């Protein structure tokens, strides 16, 4: 038997088992309706949770972008001051940040996809619950024992399939979000450990070194500039770095 049919049978057997359990089929209708409303609530909370995770990733991405920009500036500043070692350090850190940024972008896209999927699913579920409520009241108003079983079964089979689908979708979304949270937690840890330094803090050693160099090396810089003007080839590149750095300001 094909997969499509086997899967549909899994859903159908779950629905009919629920119906068999009830003494009065009408109770099944009310019970199912309550569960539908609960599921819709859960679903809405699920959407909020995914949105929260997405926003967290957005904030992290913003922070990384800020750090990358700052490191670029620091690299430039270091070159102006002839400190290629510091520039190299800044660029290496920026490269590490870029790798993380790519990862975050992928996470963000995935979270957006999950969010949209859950929003769509809750819209469908809501429409079905409303249709079910009307059907349920009609069945109860015209209740005759002989046909109740069939009618209740008909009303329930579709919605229970939907509920199974939605329940599974939520579970899978939660799992995905959890694994992403673990990964974005890792970004926070990297930042805390200094591997992806949070450049907004005052204790940035790279910046401290740059500040020290820039205040203490006024003479050196003038010297480099003079060398540059005299056409010393090594100093030349440093000088041009200095000029473009000044344009930035």
């Amino acid at each position, binding site marked *: 038997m094909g997969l499509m049919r086997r899967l549909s049978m899994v859903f159908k057997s779950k629905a009919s088992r629920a119906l068999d359990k009830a003494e009065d089929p009408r109770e099944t209708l009310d019970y199912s309706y309550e569960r539908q409303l609960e599921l819709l609530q859960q679903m809405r909370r699920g959407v909020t949770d995914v949105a929260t995770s997405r926003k967290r990733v957005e904030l992290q991405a913003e922070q990384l972008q800020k750090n990358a920009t700052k490191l670029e500036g620091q690299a430039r500043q270091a070159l102006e001051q002839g400190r290629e070692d510091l520039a190299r350090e800044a660029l290496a850190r920026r490269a590490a940040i870029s790798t993380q940024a790519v990862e975050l972008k992928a996470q963000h896209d995935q979270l957006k996809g999950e969010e949209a999927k859950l929003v769509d699913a809750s819209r469908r579920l809501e429409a079905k619950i409303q249709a*079910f409520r009307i059907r349920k009241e009609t069945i109860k108003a015209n209740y005759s024992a002989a046909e109740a079983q069939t009618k209740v079964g008909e009303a329930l089979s579709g919605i229970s*399939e939907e509920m199974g689908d939605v329940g599974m979708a939520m579970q899978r979304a939660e799992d995905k979000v959890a694994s992403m949270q673990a990964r974005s937690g890792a970004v926070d840890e990297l930042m805390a450990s200094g591997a992806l330094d949070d450049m907004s803090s005052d204790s940035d050693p790279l910046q401290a070194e740059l500040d020290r160099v820039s205040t203490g090396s006024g003479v050196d810089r003038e010297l480099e500039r003079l060398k540059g003007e005299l056409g010393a080839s090594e100093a030349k590149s440093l000088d041009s770095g200095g000029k473009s750095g000044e344009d930035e300001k």
Partner: protein
Amino acid sequence: MILRILEEGQYEVPDEVLDALNTLDDELVAAIEAGDQGRFERSLAELLSRVRAGGSRVADDYLGPSDLVLPPADASLEEVREMLSEEGLIPG
């Protein structure tokens, strides 16, 4: 026929499309039995796109069950195996 793609919704699919779907369905089963993830992904993607192209979306408030059910687009082979098992992924 009414066909559900899990996490996507229900489609009404005309009978003439079914033959092609069944062939792809067999291919999917073979991929699952072989435990071939790549082949599984390719046949699932192909099957789902045929359903989307050949079928039309059923109204959100339609209450009927589906004749056939298909895994979500990003399902792994392992997840589909679990769905088929008794305690599987499908709650209820």
